[in-house]
């Protein structure tokens, strides 16, 4: 029975390929809507089209890190403790960093277009996104440190929760920093609340497309992680086997 036998070794299955095609279709749909079918904003001109990739990127960043936090909790809770949770948490965080980076880049591009410079400390969303990035860069760096799998998982789980718990706090403090702070001149152009129906739909298309991309990336990244874990365990076993198999006469290395 073929569940999608691969002639080439890899992480693909029929299911994941279907998902991939759907994701690509979603992205194509987004480009079509973003460039052709949606109108330019009266005030912002075509730059509003950047919102159709910026907003979904930010959404997916939050979703990714939310998944990380959830998986971290699941790992820490004794009844559901399993390294699988830890593995997914790590993969989701990496993808989250990707989306955060994309959100930053698109946000800065949008800023360059609308206000003439790339960065603005008064732009609450931009600053919050940058901090979000920093928060989880530390998390991913922590995960890379060599340690026993369960030690690493526990550390990462707590770190993930610490980081995610901070997100609303960062959000609020930066938001107030912008509005309660002295500067009366707010140049940031908010997404017009009376948003055109097609524009809103374009954002929606973006979210759907990016979510498909997220799931696809997660599936593959997770499979890679499973293999990495296997190899790590296998490498350890091999080292132990070699130790045990050493002939008596050989100088034994004191452990």
């Amino acid at each position, binding site marked *: 029975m073929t569940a999608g036998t691969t002639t080439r070794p890899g992480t693909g299955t029929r299911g994941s390929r279907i998902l991939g095609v759907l994701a690509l279709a979603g992205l194509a749909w987004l480009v079509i809507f973003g460039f052709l079918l949606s109108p330019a904003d009266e005030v912002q001109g075509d730059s509003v089209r950047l919102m159709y990739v910026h907003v979904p990127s930010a959404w997916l960043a939050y979703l990714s890190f939310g998944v990380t936090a959830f998986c971290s909790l699941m790992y820490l809770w004794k009844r559901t403790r399993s390294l699988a949770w830890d593995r997914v948490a790590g993969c989701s965080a990496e993808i989250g960093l990707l989306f955060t980076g994309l959100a930053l880049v698109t946000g800065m591009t949008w800023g360059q277009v609308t206000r003439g410079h790339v960065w603005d400390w008064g732009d609450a969303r931009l600053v919050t996104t940058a901090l979000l990035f*920093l928060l989880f860069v530390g998390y991913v760096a922590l995960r890379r440190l060599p340690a026993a799998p369960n030690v690493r998982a526990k550390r990462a789980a*707590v*770190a993930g929760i610490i980081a995610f718990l901070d997100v609303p706090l*960062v959000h609020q403090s930066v938001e107030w920093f912008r509005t309660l702070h002295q500067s009366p001149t707010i140049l940031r152009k908010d997404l017009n609340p009376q948003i055109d129906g097609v524009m809103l739909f374009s954002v929606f298309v973006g979210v759907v497309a990016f979510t498909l991309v997220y799931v696809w990336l997660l599936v593959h990244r997770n499979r890679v992680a499973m293999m990495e874990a296997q190899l790590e365990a296998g490498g350890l076993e091999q080292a132990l086997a070699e130790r045990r198999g050493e002939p008596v006469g050989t100088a034994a290395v004191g452990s």
Partner: protein
Amino acid sequence: MLRAALLVAGKDLRIEWRSKVGIVQVLPFAMAVLVLFAFALDGNRSTLRDVTPGLAWIAMLLSLLLGVQRAFGPETADGALDALRLSGLEPSGVFLGKAAALAAQLLALGMLLGIGVALFYGPDAPGVGGWVVLVTTVVVATTGLAAVGTLYGALSAGIRVRDTLLPILVLPVVMPVLIAATRAVEASLGIGAELTDAWPWVGLLAVFTLAYTALGLLAFGPLLEET
């Protein structure tokens, strides 16, 4: 839990009292930071006065990093987070004790830093209301910093590259404290803000502190566990 907390806090503070690392190393470091800023900002008195709160809190954050390494230094040297675990003390109590000790040391540092700031940067003295805000802010913010520091300290115990990793872990998380505490102190000193502006910020600091204290109480169990 409280008994465990007092035991642990007492031990940590006694160690600190005997070794005096805080006074001999961390305080001079914090003072050096203040001097650095003064040089970087060209010793411009009016500029310094305006940015005093921010600079003071940055000095506190940097000192926090040192403090955390110190707080978990003796434990991890012999791999003896085990000692805490085997002591049979309740983990939440251990957290409370270590965080309290760290907070106490930071508060002491903060007070001395405040004197240093008053001397070097010359902000105007606050009124009575200002003092209330100032003290509240410092206490709440410092406690929050200590809670986060203790969490990460335990988390990173035993990591060889801890000293380079700790900053990138801790600093992003405490950004809200920096933002809120700076604004609150500014309001208390009347720098570009009214006194009443401070209270939302103090509220935010309180939420931060409560949240991370709660997390610490819950997470120390798993952190101290064998596996």
